[in-house]
């Protein structure tokens, strides 16, 4: 079956503009996660959705970042008034359920460049 897909694969934007990044999780997966990897850094947790529960937003770096998940499936990560330090690869992952032993399946990422 299809894996996690993300669009666009690359996004170049100007400082101050808003961007939207999309994630299509694996069908039937109830948990969805957003991470980012800045140059030379590890993967940094941003936000986590599980079913109809309130999302865990503890990793969002500022109030310019927000995410929503419509219908328990597709998710959109929105960055308002982008800054150069927002440049990174944004990765989405999904898993069947939030059980401790379920692995997360990652998409290929969206490379965001803020000029």
């Amino acid at each position, binding site marked *: 079956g299809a894996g996690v897909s993300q669009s666009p694969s690359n996004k170049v934007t100007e400082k101050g503009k808003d961007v939207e990044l999309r994630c299509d999780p694996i069908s039937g997966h109830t948990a969805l996660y957003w991470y980012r990897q800045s140059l030379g*850094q*590890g*993967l940094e*947790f941003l936000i*986590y959705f599980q079913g109809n529960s309130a999302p865990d937003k503890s990793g969002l770096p500022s109030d310019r970042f927000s995410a929503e998940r419509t219908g328990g499936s597709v998710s959109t990560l929105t960055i308002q008034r982008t800054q150069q330090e927002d440049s990174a690869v944004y990765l989405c992952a999904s898993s069947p359920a939030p059980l*401790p*032993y379920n692995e997360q399946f*990652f998409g290929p990422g969206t490379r965001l460049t803020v000029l």
Partner: protein
Amino acid sequence: DQQVKQNSPSLSVQEGRISILNCDYTNSMFDYFLWYKKYPAEGPTFLISISSIKDKNEDGRFTVFLNKSAKHLSLHIVPSQPGDSAVYFCAAKNTGKLIFGQGTTLQVKP
């Protein structure tokens, strides 16, 4: 505060030899650990995991060891193959989300 640390940014080994990648963590509440492998321009892919109730898990050429008292885990790859060249991330599970280390770039030379 880096809760999961991979102190070696890179490692180079000869084909056929053992690769040992190390990871340290600070939070004793972590109860599940995973290793992911990442090729350029691709998302990370799951490699192997271990529960905190175990000290070893083996899957083919890959073995993960967990030393809870030292808060240390390691990934052993033997024998190493050129196709194993990638960035390896260790991760710890914390209330659903994964806390990742910075990654170690492994190069296996033919």
